């Protein structure tokens, strides 16, 4: 048993951490929040130049052909740095194309994702209260009609992979955003750093990407990447809380000496370690094509959302009044927590999906 990332993936993680530590983080997030740009184009170009959008793309399509571990570590570092760029989206879209795309679809889209000429996003939500298991957008003779919202980084995107209703439930479709019948509008969300938008499709050309089963398989893979992203964000929030607890004095001593504070920090670590164990297991299941993929992905999703919500909320608490101000960086993690929940469905949805997969396994065993 070797339950850890490969040396290649670890080296990539170190490289990404160093890069994002220098080029992203709360200060860059704040600039994005205060600015008019829809994303940080310079930072994005640097990430493309480093070959990170090409990491998972097979060599035949102009990429590096790394395993899915590469996508996991990049998602984690993007999450840690709050980087206002569409990297997490590109990774999720690439995963869909690699897992479900035909040879033609891969040849059409992957080289552009690798070299940065295509900015890809994914979206399942339709602005209401439905779960990722539902879609009302419809496809008729290759044309898709419906509204997908919110979609992160939509304003920067040139291509979208979205869900629409099919005979067996939702399935994925590729939409070229430069085509006819495509409307893009900005929307306001609780995350002020990464911009979100609404995609209105009125008979736009749509290319089917896999079937209903493929959609659920993609959802699991996206959830795994999302788990790493959430862990990265949670780790940054914990680090911020711990650093403050070591520095802030009250009643004549550092607040980190009080068990009330100390134990909150320990609980952040405990929740993160549980999430990390599940996320690693899920990363293995994804790469190995293991039958427990759904179970592992669902557990990773729930555990990472638990870790992130706790770290983001208690980070503000540990900072006291200052943590609640506009000037404090606490709000970025607090807000991003909501964005990451919205991106792939709530804890409720994924907890139910986990129990369903456990029930299914019991039935198979029985």
């Amino acid at each position, binding site marked *: *048993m070797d339950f850890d990332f490969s040396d290649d993936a670890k080296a990539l993680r170190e490289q990404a951490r160093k890069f994002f530590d220098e080029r992203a983080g709360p200060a860059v997030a704040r600039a994005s929040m205060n600015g008019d740009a829809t994303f940080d184009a310079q930072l994005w170009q640097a990430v493309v130049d480093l070959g990170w959008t090409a990491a998972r793309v097979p060599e035949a399509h102009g990429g590096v052909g790394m395993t899915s*571990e590469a996508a996991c570590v990049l998602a984690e570092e993007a999450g840690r740095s709050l980087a206002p760029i569409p990297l997490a989206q590109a990774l999720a879209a690439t995963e869909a194309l690699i897992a479900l795309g035909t040879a033609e679809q891969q040849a059409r889209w992957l080289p552009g994702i690798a070299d940065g000429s295509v900015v890809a996003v994914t979206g399942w939500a339709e602005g209401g209260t439905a779960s990722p298991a539902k879609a009302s957008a419809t496809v008729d003779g290759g044309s898709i009609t419906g509204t997908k919202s919110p979609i992160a980084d939509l304003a920067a995107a040139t291509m979208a992979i979205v869900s629409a209703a099919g005979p067996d439930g939702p399935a994925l479709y590729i939409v070229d955003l430069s085509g006819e019948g495509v409307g893009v509008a900005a929307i306001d969300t609780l995350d002020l750093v990464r911009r979100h938008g609404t995609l209105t499709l009125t008979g736009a050309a749509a290319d089917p990407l896999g079937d209903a089963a493929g959609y659920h398989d993609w959802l699991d893979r996206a959830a795994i990447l999302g788990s790493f992203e959430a862990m990265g964000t949670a780790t940054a929030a914990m680090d911020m809380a711990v650093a403050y607890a070591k520095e802030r004095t009250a009643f004549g001593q550092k607040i980190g000496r009080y068990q009330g504070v100390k134990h909150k920090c320990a609980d952040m670590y405990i929740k993160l370690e*549980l999430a990390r*164990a599940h996320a690693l297991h899920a990363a293995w299941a994804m790469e190995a094509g293991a039958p427990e993929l759904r179970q592992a992905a669902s557990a990773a999703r729930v555990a990472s959302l*638990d870790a992130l919500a706790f770290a983001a909320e208690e980070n503000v608490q540990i900072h006291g009044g200052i943590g609640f101000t506009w000037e404090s960086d606490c709000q970025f993690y607090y807000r991003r927590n909501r964005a990451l929940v919205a991106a792939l469905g709530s804890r409720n949805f994924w907890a139910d999906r986990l129990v369903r997969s456990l029930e299914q396994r019991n039935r198979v065993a029985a």
Partner: protein
Amino acid sequence: MDFNDTPGDAEYRAKAHAWLATAAAEYRDPPARAVSRGENVPESRKWQKIKHAAGYTGITWPKAFGGQGLSPMHSIIFNQEQSKYHAPTELFAIGLGMCIPTVFTHGSPALIERYVAKALEGEEVWCQLFSEPSAGSDLAGIRTKAVRDGDDWVIDGQKVWTTNAHLSDFGIIVTRTDPSAPKHKGLTMFIVDMHAPGVEARPLKQMSGGSDFNEVFFTGVRVSDSHRLGAVGDGWKVSLTTLMNERLAVGGKPGHAPGYRDLMALAARIETDMGPAIEARDVRQRIAATYIADEGIKLTQMRALSALSKGEAPGPEQSISKVVVAKTMQEMAAFALDLSEASGFTTTGGEPGIHKLQGSYMASAGLRIAGGTDEILRNIIAERVLGLPGDMRPDKDTPFNEIRAA
């Protein structure tokens, strides 16, 4: 990343699996009724001897001490396979997991020669005499004293929460030998004969109804200086060897403790006025939370093991185990008993599944304390892993005999 056994590990697992299929056949089913450790002594001895003869004891110990000289991975693999049976293994867990490793780390060659093999063969049972009525989490506050008298030391005092003391032949005991030194500096550790004159173990009845613990009284008990472990005054350092082994040993989930599967099975059987319990969202949330904790700890331990097998030091991951395991057991059991309405409360009649959960609810309260309370373990994580400042310990450098007793 590869989640499967290496070829070598797979071979060892297959060998252990095949051996257990025959050797442990009589333990395949759970015992018909709960058996206390006391009743289990002959049975435990028998199983230990069978394992010893087949080379499945002291798996990670050096061959020079009668062990197998294998890796922690081999030990875990054997334990995983053994845990599929209901063999009696608890009686020797403390001796082999904590006491004897302390003996062979800090004892003289003569002590190692005298005690290690006998413990391994299941001949002699050991206990760990650490906690006292006024020294639990604050372990260095012990008052049991040992006074030098020629070649001997004379021990007077009281220990408590001593698991299996009433069944034990020997114990390792931490004593105060220099009351004028600060509390961590004046301690010394010995091996004590539990059958010696002046030793009296009185079983304590726990709130769960069981009696695994004792209070142990020492009145003028003589121990030869040859039975000292480590230098005089080094007892705290020696204790840390034991405590580190203890945290490794008690970190995981107790064998056959109920988990998410039991909650799922129960929730599938229970009909509520709103339909089957398992269809309710709060029930599914709780099953998911229990799964995350149960499986998360298992996976966390596998991460630590992977690091060990690559020659890396085990990370601080282990320190989260007990906090998560004990509290999860308590919350899950409480939730299951809630779901069961009146049958979760009554202890006569009802289904065995409920009794197991009731037992777990009662035992988990103790598990949150044994081997370090939730609070102490959180302090360890916060201070040693996250680097937060240490707890206030105003008595740390004060001579022990000048510390005001409460």
